[in-house]
């Protein structure tokens, strides 16, 4: 059971990075549909940086850089050039796959044995990590997970208690109101896409250098989309994203635990599909959706 919770926290961390970044961007009106590509670029650049410099810190910095670059391309096209968000995201996701597999080959050629780095170490927090159950689950994690503990409340505060949060939320509800208030809507949205790039890059790095210490092109395998979905499920709210991540992460951990104990009466595939089925069920049963009114709609002033 404790094991299950540990897996939930570990695997939930990057999803939460992704979904909270998505919450921010979507609150301002932009769906970051390039999230899968941002994750992947982050994972790749993080690994390359860490491998070549032997420094995980440089790796994380590279991941952020790559995430921001990918996000900037996406943001430029969708926010400034006003092109369709789903469409642009799809193109960038495909490009990201090609880009990392190609560059991986350019940089490393065909290595005979797997390239690895030592992943981020677990940093047990003195005292706290000794608490039964809670200790090992929450306080024996890596630095990125601890950072997440700060980001959740901070983002809630930022979004709901500050003037910046008010601007962000207004930009997604009625960008004209923001424009009339003398704030550049496109700039707000673009910055939030970049923020999504930062957090998405970190999320990607979590997989490659935070958790596994290696990189493969299939590494993300749809997890960016999961983060995207969690943002929807969480009602565009950091608290909801947290709840969504916990539910999703726990179901996934449960499914893996079922798979790992050698199966049984139910087919393996049922467990594999379980988190996705759950997402659909939650989507259906949810009564109210607080979709930002202008989500996905570019702000066009004149023609």
């Amino acid at each position, binding site marked *: 059971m404790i094991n299950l919770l540990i897996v939930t926290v570990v695997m939930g961390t990057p999803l939460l990075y992704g979904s909270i970044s998505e919450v921010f961007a979507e609150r301002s009106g932009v769906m970051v549909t390039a999230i899968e590509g941002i994750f992947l670029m982050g994972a790749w650049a993080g690994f390359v940086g860490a491998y070549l410099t032997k420094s995980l810190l440089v790796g994380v910095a590279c991941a952020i850089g790559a995430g921001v670059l990918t996000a900037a391309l996406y943001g430029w096209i969708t926010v400034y050039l006003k092109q369709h968000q789903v469409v642009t995201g799809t193109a960038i996701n495909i490009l990201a796959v*090609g880009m990392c*597999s190609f560059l991986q080959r350019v940089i490393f050629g065909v290595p005979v044995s797997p390239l690895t780095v030592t992943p981020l170490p677990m940093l047990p927090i003195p005292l706290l990590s000794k608490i039964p159950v809670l200790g090992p689950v929450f306080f024996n994690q890596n630095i990125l997970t601890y950072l997440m503990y700060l980001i959740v409340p901070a983002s809630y505060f930022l979004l709901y208690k500050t003037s910046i949060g008010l601007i962000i939320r207004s930009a997604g509800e009625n960008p004209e109101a923001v424009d009339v208030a003398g704030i550049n809507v496109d700039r707000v949205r673009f910055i939030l896409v970049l923020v999504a790039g930062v957090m998405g890059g970190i999320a990607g790095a979590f997989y490659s250098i935070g958790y596994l210490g290696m990189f493969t092109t299939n590494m993300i395998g*749809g997890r960016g989309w999961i983060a995207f979905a969690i943002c929807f499920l969480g009602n565009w709210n950091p608290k909801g994203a947290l709840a969504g991540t916990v539910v999703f992460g726990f179901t996934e951990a449960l499914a893996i635990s079922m798979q790992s104990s050698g199966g049984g009466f139910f087919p393996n*595939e049922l467990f594999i*599909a379980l988190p996705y089925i759950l997402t*659909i069920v939650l989507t259906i049963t949810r009564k109210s959706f607080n979709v930002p009114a202008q989500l996905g709609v570019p702000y066009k002033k004149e023609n």
Partner: protein
Amino acid sequence: MNAKFRDLLLTTFLAIVLGLGLSAVMILFLGKNPLDAFGLLFTSIIRDQYTFGDIFVKATPLIFTALSFAFTFKANLFNIGAQGQFYIGAVIAVWSSLLMGGKVPGPLALLIVLILTAVGGGIWGALIGYFKARFNANEFLTSMMSTYVALAIMNYLLRTVLMEKKGEYPQTDALNESVWLPTFVPGTRLHIGFILAVLVAVGIWVLLYKTPLGYRIRAVGYNADAARMSGIDAKKLYVIAFFISGALAAGAGYTEVNGVQHMLLQGFNPDIGSAGLGIAILANANPIGIIFASILFGALNVGGTIMGQMSGIPSSIIELMEGFVMVFVILSYFVRARLENRREKRKLQKKVEE
């Protein structure tokens, strides 16, 4: 030729050239000569009949999945679950073909398989529409998730009821030859599925723009409130639109199973959904444009593969080319709108000055 159409051709062409050009620059990083590589790409696809035919073989399922996305897109809905609907279609196609192969006369069996596949994929897709209509569930999310579920279903069936007789691998037995889609160009594997795809594309265009049903689907997509006020049942149309979309994606399963693979195996065409979406982008969701965009992707695929095989350039060059071309095509939308605006403004200024 009017200016708008000229812009369209010119900017799209330019986008493709720039996309390929940028990929060529990337090849430089490998220390290879991009000119040689691209020379190879272009000469190889017309090298022999078989390879040339393969372009259209490749294009066939892409036409279907692209239509699947485009059809709902035109109605302002999102079906990004084409991959899953394709899996469901493939499963039904292979299952029914296995049952009927050799027992029912070929053409009849092929027809029944087609109908079953379309209906099955359609129902799978219609669920998304039903969830939207009944529970106001976001179709973007449910369609995305449905792919993973479909994949699990396919994998489960492949290792249980559909598993090959010798029981070794999670794949089906090969289909009886009577249920293969016949090829129509000798010396190639170009099967009549391609013709079917082209006809369906034209049919979808007619449906969308020439029939009252298509008209209503678009009306609901653009403005559900106005449609409702006009006595149009939006909920019913959601279900219908997603049914058609799902059936289209399932059509790709039919042509791949009965036309190309003649069996179903795990890990079957895992990227066909997103490629379809990309093609829909390339074609600006126009059903007729999709035919051409699919052929372009088919050519990139076939040529890129041969290029990889003969010049030592990794096959990821294909995704790179496709990705760059798509990004530039999206940029070309913007450029076109800009050009159009400029033109109008200049016209105006001239008028004012007179």
